[in-house]
């Protein structure tokens, strides 16, 4: 037992000695390590400083290049402008080519402009039997037209609108130069069952003039034709070749099954309009008006947006045949 204790004691003593040496060594080593780490860090900082200086120099180079390019661009623009002014006939608008996508036939035009209000007053003569405008104007057969620009369709208090006009209004149709222009051109293309019994003004200049006249009676004229989000297309006048497409009735029958999820086949129109007994051409024009996002309803815009001209014709043919 004792000898064992002795061995233990000496082992312990030895261990303590070793530990002591080790501690001293460790402490010294630790300081050296710290010193080494600091040296490394200084080196790192010095090299990143150098990198930053390098970067700054390159940035200056880049700025110089940009300035150079800007100068070159300005010179080029000046030259181009001078050349343009020197040429009396500027680059002509290209004629729409026959090979273009049929969709582009009713392409958007953002540049609708007001015409001559005095000419417009003369054109408005044919509207006066139903619409009054100006001081003291009241609703007659049609609503008065003071403040028509910016007004929500079907929203003028006290006038009894057709269901379709009221529905268009709650769908978000607002009168702007774009929407009024489309409505005046072909009232039933925009609002299918409007009570406005008017064939439409086919002459674009007449419409521009009458719109200029009407605008004088709107308190805060909205001279920002591109601002209305639901009115991107200028017109829904379709090219004859689009209207002439002969629809595939079998295909139309399948496509029509998408319509009948919502539109009842028996012609009921509670909440959702009836689409039965609809003349083919009106149907085609209305679908294109949705496709061009001129008519505002989001579901119909979505459904129409993925229909090709042929598919719209197929639907029209099917509906025409099924009645």
């Amino acid at each position: 037992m004792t000898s064992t204790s002795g061995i233990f004691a000496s082992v312990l003593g030895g261990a303590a000695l070793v530990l002591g040496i080790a501690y001293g060594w460790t402490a010294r080593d630790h300081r050296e390590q710290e010193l080494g780490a600091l040296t490394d860090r200084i080196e790192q900082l010095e090299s990143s400083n150098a990198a930053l200086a390098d970067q700054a120099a390159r940035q200056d180079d880049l700025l110089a290049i940009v300035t150079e390019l800007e100068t070159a661009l300005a010179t080029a623009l000046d030259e181009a402008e001078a050349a343009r002014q020197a040429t009396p006939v500027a680059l002509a608008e290209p004629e729409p080519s026959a090979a273009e996508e049929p969709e582009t036939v009713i392409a958007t035009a953002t540049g609708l402009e007001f015409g001559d209000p005095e000419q417009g007053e003369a054109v408005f003569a044919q509207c006066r039997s139903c619409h009054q405008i100006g001081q003291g104007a009241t609703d007659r057969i049609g609503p008065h037209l003071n403040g028509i620009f910016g007004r929500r369709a079907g929203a003028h208090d006290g006038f009894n609108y057709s269901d379709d006009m009221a529905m268009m209004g709650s769908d978000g149709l607002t009168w702007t130069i774009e929407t009024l222009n489309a409505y005046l051109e072909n009232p039933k293309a925009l609002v299918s069952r409007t009570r406005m019994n008017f064939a439409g003004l086919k002459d674009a200049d007449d419409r521009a003039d009458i719109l200029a006249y009407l605008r004088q009676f709107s308190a805060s004229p909205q001279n920002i034709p591109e601002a209305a989000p639901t009115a991107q297309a200028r017109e829904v006048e379709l090219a004859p070749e689009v209207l002439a497409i002969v629809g595939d009735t079998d295909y139309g029958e399948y496509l029509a099954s998408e319509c009948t999820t919502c539109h009842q086949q028996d012609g009921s129109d509670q909440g959702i309009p009836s689409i039965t007994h609809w003349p083919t051409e009106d149907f085609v024009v209305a679908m294109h008006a949705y496709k061009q996002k001129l008519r505002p309803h989001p579901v119909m815009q979505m459904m129409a947006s993925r229909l090709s001209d042929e598919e719209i014709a197929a639907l029209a043919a099917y509906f025409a045949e099924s009645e």
Partner: protein
Amino acid sequence: MKLNRRVFIGTGMAAASTLTAPMVHAASHGKPKVVVIGGGAGGATAARYIAKDSDGEIDVTLIEPTRSYYTCFFSNLYLGGFWDLENLSHSYGTLASDYGINVVHDWATGIDRDAKTVALAGGGSVPYDRLILSPGIDFVEGSVPGWDLSAQNAMPHAYKGGSQTELLKAQVMAMPEGGTYVMVAPPNPYRCPPGPYERVSMVAHVLKANNPTAKIIIADPKENFSKQGLFEEGWQKHYSGMITRIGPDFGGGNVTVDPAAMTVDVDGELIQADVVNVIPAQKAGHICEAAGLTEGNWAPVDGASMVSRLDENIHILGDASNQGDMPKSGFSANSQAKVAAMAVRGALTGSRVFPAKYSNTCWSLIATDDGVKVGAAYEPNEEKIASVSSFVSQTGEDAALRKATYEESIGWYEGITSDMFG
């Protein structure tokens, strides 16, 4: 067995003119036979379109256990007191009388895919050349600990139309003054994404009128939900202070219920409730799994024709299918049914097959005349049915538009139910 669209349509068309005709005769002693399991938005529509468009060339059998079908869609309007139960009820009479569909009121208990027959609970079996499966949903067992189907009277799910809807309404009407309604909302994917939140709106509408100090708590495992901004705006506007939603950040996904004690444990916090509406996690109707047509909880299909990726003679519609981006809704099922009907007719009679187009719109009512909607158009690619464009109602819309949207939804209900039932 996996079919791509071109191969499927190609073989379908070729087979129709040459190969299937004799085979069909062998199988059915006459006209080709289509059996449809499930008479909801998918099945009833498919049966009607096949019968209508094949002009008697195809025998159509519809297997549906209920004689009066109560739509699950719009059942929230009944909960909110806007509609009577009768508004939701439809019969199969017209499908039988006007379309010549053989309507069998029985449960389909199994499918023998080799023999191509469907076994009925009442005995016997029905042979098919093509089977359309539209069984809707069943619940994932154990998804809400403490709840199983035996507890559905104490804690109704009301996520299949009919008696459960009635039961939940009765429980809401019987709530004590200042009582608590708890909804345990389901994880994705599930039937009718905005449904639970429209339901909360409708319950709040009823409570606001009859029991204004009552509270509604939603325990929700999802970070976000359908039309969230629109619902939250509406809840603030119409039912301020009544509705509390506990999302997953606060333990909304960690829920245990005790139907005997009527308590809900949300992440350790015990709520004593008067009505507990448990909407469990969902899976394809059981028959899909029993027939070996599922992968995971749902039945995978090819979006070109809704044909099962595991059986070329079976098309699977609606909530049960795993098709891609379309939500599980009545509108989706109805849209898918038309594509499947066209594909089935093409395969059996050689009629023309056109490229599939799908669409969906979900309307929800938040309060009286305050309707909102979300929708999208879809087209299939090799992998799935993919969304190609979409829209959603905006917050801050004016009252006239919201009212028109609600009226539009009523019009849609009339449209789709006549599209389903004739």
